[in-house]
């Protein structure tokens, strides 16, 4: 949306955040926070990522993250060869006491994931049937020109940002961001996460083919996490820069 006066904005912002939008926003916010923290703790137990069906300390990693003492710990007994060859199949016993808090972290991760899954399902059902997605989140065809996209980028890069209404209508970048999070990133998170679950992939082996293996799914899960964290940082920054009190009132009290 192009720059408009505050009064115009107020007049146009007849649509406030509906109660169900506010409730699901905060359930999702709490779930995502718990998922991010527990997910990071889970990653700390094995900070190596792979591509394909399998991956472990005895196979090459795609990349490794120096985020716990497990990073390249090197505590392995001499390997025993099962099958020799160019890339031999071996086994080795671990001699190192690794960092592992997955007992609580995994359970917290899945508990929060249930809240997220159920909330996203309700949100999508309500958003589709009530027109919230169509009216507020899906960009209109005429909005989607490179010119208007550029205009919106420029508005966001210039400080101070114009005060925004507490609710729809949203600007183009806002629409793309919210639509991307709710309709793309969160469902991708859930499905790639479930592709790591042995009971789920036994029931739906197509998931393994979809992601190219459960370790690929784990890597995609990680990159989707990074994307969501970036969104979260920008989202909170925008709330602060466009009137923190007003935005918080709009998303809690609905005024």
């Amino acid at each position, binding site marked *: 949306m192009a720059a408009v006066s505050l009064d115009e904005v107020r007049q146009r912002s007849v649509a406030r955040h509906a109660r169900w939008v506010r409730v699901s926003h905060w359930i999702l916010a709490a779930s995502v926070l718990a998922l991010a923290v527990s997910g990071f703790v889970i990653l700390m137990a094995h900070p190596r990522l792979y591509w394909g069906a399998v991956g472990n300390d005895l196979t090459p990693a795609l990349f490794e993250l120096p985020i716990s003492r497990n990073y390249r710990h090197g505590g392995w007994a001499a390997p025993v060869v*099962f099958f020799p060859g160019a890339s031999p199949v071996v086994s080795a016993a671990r001699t190192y006491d690794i960092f*592992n808090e997955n007992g609580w972290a995994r359970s917290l991760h899945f508990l929060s994931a249930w809240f997220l899954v159920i909330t996203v399902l309700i949100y999508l059902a309500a958003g589709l049937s009530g027109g919230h997605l169509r009216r507020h989140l899906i960009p209109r065809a005429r909005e989607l020109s490179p010119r208007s996209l550029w205009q919106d980028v420029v508005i966001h890069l210039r400080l101070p940002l114009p005060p925004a209404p507490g609710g729809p209508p949203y600007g183009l970048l806002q629409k793309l961001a919210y639509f991307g999070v709710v309709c793309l990133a969160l469902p991708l998170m859930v499905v790639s996460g479930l592709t790591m679950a042995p009971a789920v992939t036994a029931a739906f082996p197509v998931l393994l083919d979809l992601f190219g293996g459960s370790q690929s799914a784990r890597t995609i899960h990680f990159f989707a996490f990074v994307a969501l964290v970036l969104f979260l940082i920008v989202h909170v920054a925008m709330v602060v820069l466009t009137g923190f009190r007003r935005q918080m009132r709009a998303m809690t009290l609905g005024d």
Partner: protein
Amino acid sequence: MNKDRLIISRRTLVTGLASTGGLLLAGCASRDLPPTYGNVLRMGDLFTYRAFRTLLPAQALAREYGQRDISSSPAVGNTNPGDAQQPTFSADRGPLYDRLRAGDFADWRLRVEGRVARPASFSLADLKRMPSRTQITKHTCEEGWSAIAQWTGVPLRAVLEAAGILPSARFVNYFAYDDIAEGVDMLDALHPQTILAYGMNGRDLPLAHGAPLRMRIETQLGYKSVKFLERIVVSDEFDDLGKIGSLQNGWAWYVGI
């Protein structure tokens, strides 16, 4: 009007989902289900167990791979129950394991007891005479890594049938020579890929991977596939297995996720 109809349908949706949740959580105090001890994390685990058992087809087979897909396999946790320096060392069963290993497991026996008509103990030779199954499957560790290996063993179902498992049986618990015990429900115990493995990658099960016999539960995480098996106990009611079970150590009992 359209808006009114929307609110009703949304309320119906919420009520529907809430009652589904209630149904899934119902029976918290049942002896057919893992206890929650009032711990919210264990409630989430229970919800996952109920949801998976309700929503997923029972006993779907885990993917089996080809010979060429076999990968290297780390051996983690206890890699020698006879070694007092290892985690989960058992002061009474550890030295016993050492003696059995020194005798090449000739005197080793797997006891099968509890709710069975004919409590029995099987030598390795007994188990190898029973029907065998070889499968190349993926081991998924809770830590985040995975490995593909070939496992050869006797289906747990065949062993339970040989001991005359009683119709009232609901859980199969299994104990190791270190301080580790686990259990599964009958759906996973009788799963066609649930085997008692004595072979890995075409040779005898190596020490670090659970010699002479380990469990393979292919639809759950690695820690359910207990190494160094000592005995199997069939029960009618859920047993958290005390200090050597996963629950009292803060770990989920059902880990199909």
